[in-house]
């Protein structure tokens, strides 16, 4: 990288099961307003404020062709530049970073929103499957994830208890996060006794339906330092696609994530992630995903994530706390989830994470996924120095 890109300000809404009282844009504005106030930046063309916007949303969640129209008024797009990334929000952050590095603009606002409650998540998700060979089978993210979970758990002897421990940890961590939707004191038994949705995924193994938005302002190094005292730097980032057809992949593995992580680590100069990363925020929309993604991220060997969760090193106070925020399992909307991980990582590195603060966090990892069974995997390394 020719120059560092800094995150100047972040904000998020409180995640909620149903924000029926606000429009999508109004919901996003709750967060947008905070970063505008915090930085005092305005939508102006003279180089002193926010130059351009990158939005992230999905037409089928919003039920509107060109969903960015829902946030246009709030992003200062009139007679100015806006580009929409239709992927997980973490990729919008990735894109905004390149947008600035390209020299095109200095300061960019990035926002993502989704209200899952306003439609049928299952039907929207069904549209993400190849139509002729998978979509007609009535698959959605739950049934596909269950196929992956069975494969992963049987191949690597991961137990339902180990998956349940992820839920117990993350829902418990969420109690420290005022933005979390569904903090809960749970036991492994509670999780295993919750209703079976699709074997082996119980109700509590899956993320709840959620509404919310998050936003950040990013700027090139010189300006970032002017705009805030403690910009957080993106030191490494990459993403990678897996095959689409579920039968093409070994669902017990996550090759794309391994590749994305390697590239991001290389860029950030990380050789031993477990040692060098202080806190990780991982997109786990189902409990098994946190385990599988940890393997892909190289926190342990293949199939070793069960032992990792058993050892407790990913709990608060452990060697590498994973999802101090409570993760997606505590409620984040699809496609917002990955950017929420970045927002949480920034709060950790700024020492602004309140009760969920990991002491002395210097290097954080944020991870996002998009597509069926984590088809597009994105890894971002952030640092406060």
């Amino acid at each position, binding site marked *: 990288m020719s120059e560092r890109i800094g995150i100047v300000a972040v904000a998020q809404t409180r995640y909620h099961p149903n924000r029926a009282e606000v429009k999508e844009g109004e919901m996003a504005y709750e967060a947008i307003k905070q970063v505008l106030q915090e930085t005092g930046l305005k939508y102006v063309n003279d180089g002193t404020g926010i130059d351009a916007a990158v939005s992230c949303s999905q037409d089928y969640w919003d039920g509107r062709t060109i969903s960015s129209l829902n946030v246009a008024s709030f992003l200062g797009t009139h007679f100015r530049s806006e580009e929409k990334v239709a992927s997980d929000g973490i990729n919008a952050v990735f894109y905004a970073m390149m947008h600035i590095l390209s020299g095109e603009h200095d300061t960019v606002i990035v926002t993502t929103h989704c209200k899952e409650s306003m439609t049928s998540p299952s039907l929207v998700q069904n549209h993400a499957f190849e139509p002729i060979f998978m979509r007609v089978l009535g698959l959605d993210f739950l*049934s596909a994830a269950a196929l992956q979970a069975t494969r992963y758990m049987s191949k690597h002897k991961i137990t339902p208890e180990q998956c349940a421990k992820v839920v117990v940890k993350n829902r418990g961590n969420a109690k420290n996060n005022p933005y979390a939707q569904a903090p809960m004191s749970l036991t492994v038994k509670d999780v295993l006794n919750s209703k079976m*949705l*699709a074997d082996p995924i119980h109700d509590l193994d899956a993320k709840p339906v959620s509404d919310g938005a998050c936003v950040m302002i990013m700027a090139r190094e010189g300006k970032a330092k002017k705009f805030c005292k403690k910009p957080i730097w993106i030191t490494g980032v990459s993403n990678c696609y897996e095959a689409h*057809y579920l039968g093409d992949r070994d669902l017990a593995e996550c090759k794309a994530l391994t590749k994305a992580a390697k590239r991001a680590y290389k860029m950030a100069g990380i050789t031993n992630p477990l040692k060098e990363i202080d806190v990780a925020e991982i997109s786990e929309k189902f409990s098994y995903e946190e385990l599988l993604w940890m393997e892909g991220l190289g926190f342990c060997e293949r199939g070793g994530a069960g032992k990792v969760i058993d050892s407790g090193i990913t709990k608060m106070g452990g060697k590498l706390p994973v999802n101090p925020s409570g993760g997606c399992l505590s409620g984040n909307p699809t496609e917002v989830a990955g950017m929420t991980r970045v927002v949480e990582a920034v709060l950790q590195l700024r020492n602004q994470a309140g009760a969920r603060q990991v002491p002395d966090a210097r290097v954080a990892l944020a991870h996002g996924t998009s597509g069926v069974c984590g088809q597009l995997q994105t890894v971002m390394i952030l640092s406060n120095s």
Partner: protein
Amino acid sequence: MMTTKPAKPTTAVIFAGQLMLPYRFEAGRTGSRFLRELRDNKKIMGLKCTKCNKVYVPPRSTCKECFSQIDKWIEVGNEGKLLTYTVLRVARDAEKDVLKKQLPVAYGIIKLDRADTGFVHMLGEVDLDKIKVGMRVKAVFREDERKGNILDINYFKPVSKARKR
């Protein structure tokens, strides 16, 4: 008294509606041949990349590993090994509106004998508590009105042990 402004809504004001559009998905030359074989001959066909020695089912005209165009057709057989499965036990709109089957529905990914990829489909004629990864299953075709659709296969059912020996 004239009001100077409207009252704030006390409850959420919702405009309920729907997006309803019919679409037609073209299977293409390769996909059509596969579907015709299902319909006309009850055969499951794959395409083999001769460079990577890899057989794709359903067939793809580009090999994802080496990006070469592939056109060598192979019958992969109607039997195979179950790679993974799930039993969907709760109502999901995708299943209810698109597949329209009675719950519970068992989905599986099957590695057909002469294929190198898994084939995503359903399981039937099976005790839901006795599905096991690695069990052998075989395709059960619709006998009536096959339409050139993946649902011309009703499901895959376990191959009885007696027959296996």
